[in-house]
């Protein structure tokens, strides 16, 4: 199977190597900027653990957009994404007791949960074919596909997003594609190898190198990883 058209389009313009000198890197605000005095994510999670519905409401307002974008990226269906989003926040409510701050941040926990549910949903409905078809149709217009030439306008839209995407877009397209299939489609190395007609060892190397570069890039941006 050939490479998607999207990849080919990215090759027209070689990407500049991203330099993330520490002196130039702005602090990476992982969570959206909070109003002064607003409760932290951890405060809200603790509230949810204590049965405070208002805490869930605030967490929903803060993160529904991010989680929906993630779900949409997996299942490519607006109505299904909305339904799944509701189920995921209900699961957040029901499973909040299992969240531990020692194991990571609330957003990371929610994203992990949302991704798992979205991929499960995709598999249960055996919708790979339909999703692929939609993906093909949407790829050219889809602004959030990783593998594309980001415009300057897009880059200034969000500092956090722009910085993370800068790291991701510094990867060769084949590495981006492998990570995209693994993370957003839940595909195994073998499935990626079959889909891209690439040797299994090459897929593994692409994933390892790509994830390491992203990890290291994020580490440079934010000394938390």
């Amino acid at each position, binding site marked *: 199977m050939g490479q998607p058209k999207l990849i080919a389009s990215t090759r027209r313009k070689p990407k500049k190597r991203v330099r993330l000198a520490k002196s130039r890197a702005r602090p990476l605000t992982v969570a959206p900027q909070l109003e002064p005095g607003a409760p932290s994510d951890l405060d809200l999670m603790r509230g949810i653990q204590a049965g405070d519905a208002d805490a869930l409401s605030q967490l*929903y307002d803060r993160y*529904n957009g991010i989680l*929906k974008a993630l779900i949409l990226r997996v299942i490519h269906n607006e109505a299904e994404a909305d339904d799944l989003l509701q189920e995921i926040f209900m699961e957040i409510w029901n499973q909040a007791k299992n969240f531990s701050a020692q194991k990571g941040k609330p957003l990371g926990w929610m994203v992990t949960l949302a991704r798992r549910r979205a991929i499960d949903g995709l598999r249960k409905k055996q919708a790979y074919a339909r999703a692929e078809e939609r993906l093909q149709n949407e790829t050219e217009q889809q602004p959030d596909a990783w593998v594309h030439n980001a415009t300057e306008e897009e880059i200034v*839209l969000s500092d956090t997003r722009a910085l993370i995407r800068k790291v*991701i877009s510094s990867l060769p397209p084949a590495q981006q594609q492998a990570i995209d299939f693994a993370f957003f489609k839940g595909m*195994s190395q073998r499935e990626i190898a079959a889909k891209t007609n690439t040797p299994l060892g090459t897929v593994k190397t692409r994933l390892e190198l790509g*994830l390491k570069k992203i990890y290291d890039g994020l580490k440079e941006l934010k000394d938390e990883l």
Partner: protein
Amino acid sequence: MNFSEFQNQARLYVIGALESEELEEFENARKKFGKKGEDFITKCYALHEAFALSLRPAKASDAIKERLMAMVKAKKEG
């Protein structure tokens, strides 16, 4: 498996991309590296957060929040 190889595997592990035959080896290494290994795996989960934040937020329909909060209320009362 040395720690550098473990780190590579850990990044694949958190995104669910380890093949079944690699998983067993990884779990053995995980035991071998103990807390140091667990700490690294925890850090790798930040990749999930980063991938989600790399996407442009999508607005959910207003009805979703209403339905959610009604469900929560019903659950609390039930």
